[in-house]
């Protein structure tokens, strides 16, 4: 599974240099040059990690981060700041940043922090999850709303991925790469079937949540009537 990184930095040379280093490390990098561009990239697809420069034209990295967290996006974020003021670091962490790095930084330190956060996301990101009235137990695979059912490991991975990126359309390719990366036979029909399973189970437990199809991808969202 390739870790997908969104990287927003307005200094063109630095942007290019960091992107090259990260790509050489095997990460898939989407480079943006201002906050607005970063925001539309974040809205268009799901990332495993975002690196945001604080000082950017259009929209600051801090504002991008705040909007992400306000919409329930829990993607890990590293903030890059030219300022080493305590207040800026505190603002960043309070706004929901997972880590920060003061500029200028050593490339290998950035890479180490990226690895650290990416690892945390896969190793420790298996706690209990919830979305609207749905609870998903990571140990027992119990899916619960008004009722409960036990779902299968693949269904669990799919729902976990959807819950970690709520209200965001996840492409079939992203889901295939995330959940079925070891299975060559898996294709669009596989994803579609597992989405059906989840829908059926969410409805079966009386959840006010469903998985909808949108623009060739899938999105977890709330529904009013069950």
């Amino acid at each position, binding site marked *: 599974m390739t870790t997908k990184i969104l990287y927003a930095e307005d200094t063109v040379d630095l942007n290019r240099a960091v992107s090259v280093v990260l790509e050489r490390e095997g990460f898939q990098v989407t480079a943006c040059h201002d906050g607005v561009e970063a925001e539309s990239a974040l809205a268009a697809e799901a990332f495993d990690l975002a690196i945001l420069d604080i000082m950017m034209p259009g929209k600051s990295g801090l504002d991008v981060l705040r909007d992400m967290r306000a919409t329930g996006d829990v993607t890990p974020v590293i903030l890059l700041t030219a300022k080493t003021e305590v207040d800026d670091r505190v603002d960043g962490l309070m706004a929901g940043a997972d880590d920060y790095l003061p500029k200028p930084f050593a490339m290998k330190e950035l890479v180490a922090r990226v690895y650290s956060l990416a690892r945390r996301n896969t190793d420790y990101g298996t706690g209990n999850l919830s979305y609207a009235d749905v609870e998903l137990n990571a140990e027992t695979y119990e899916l619960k709303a008004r009722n409960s059912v036990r779902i299968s490991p693949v269904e669990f991975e799919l729902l976990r991925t959807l819950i970690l990126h709520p209200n965001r359309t996840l492409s079939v390719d992203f889901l295939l790469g995330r959940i079925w990366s070891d299975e060559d036979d898996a294709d669009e029909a596989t994803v579609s079937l597992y989405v059906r399973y989840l829908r059926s*189970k969410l409805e079966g437990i009386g959840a006010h949540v469903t998985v909808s199809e949108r623009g060739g991808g899938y999105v977890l969202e709330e529904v009013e009537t069950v």
Partner: protein
Amino acid sequence: MQGDVLMGSQETIYGANLAEMERLREEVTASLEVLRRQICEKTAFDPIEHILSRVKSEESMRDKCRMRGLPETAHSALVDIRDAIGIRVVCAFRSDVYLVRDHLAHLEGFEVVEEKDYIKNAKENGYRSYHMILRTADGRVPVGCEPVSAGDEPSRGFYIEVQLRTISMDTWAALEHHMKYKKQAPANERLIVSELKRCADELASTDLSMQALRDLILEEL
């Protein structure tokens, strides 16, 4: 649902109503067989796996009256207690349960007096079934069920208790029944209770997967 009532016994708690009760039991099951054939022709899927029905045995009914502190009379058996006639419909798929439910809810000559959806609202222990109590709505009332005391409810018709469930819910309920009615509680009762709940939730999950698959297959036909 054990043992049928001995026919022709003058001692029966049901008094002169037994023949009518058997007739009603057959009327409802016959209507289910008709529904079954219609759906089979339309979808090639048999919605019903099997139907069990019975009139509660003399002994069970008298036991139940004693347990509930009721006099052993026709009024107790046919008005206070509402499962003298019982029908259990076991379906292949979850949606079939609701199909049968809709059929019974619109059955001519009967009205639904109570419904409990323990499928959408499973019991704490994992029990799942759809319960309905029907009552005849055509003026037929049991004989000899006149209220005895002032507080007694007058008889308005014959009651029929219906339980609807899928095969997996039925299997689960049968096993749970064994455990619940064992004379001595098993030593590892807590483990068994929690494992039964886990199995109920896994079976429900499989039922829902099977439903999704069936819907997909029917869509593509």
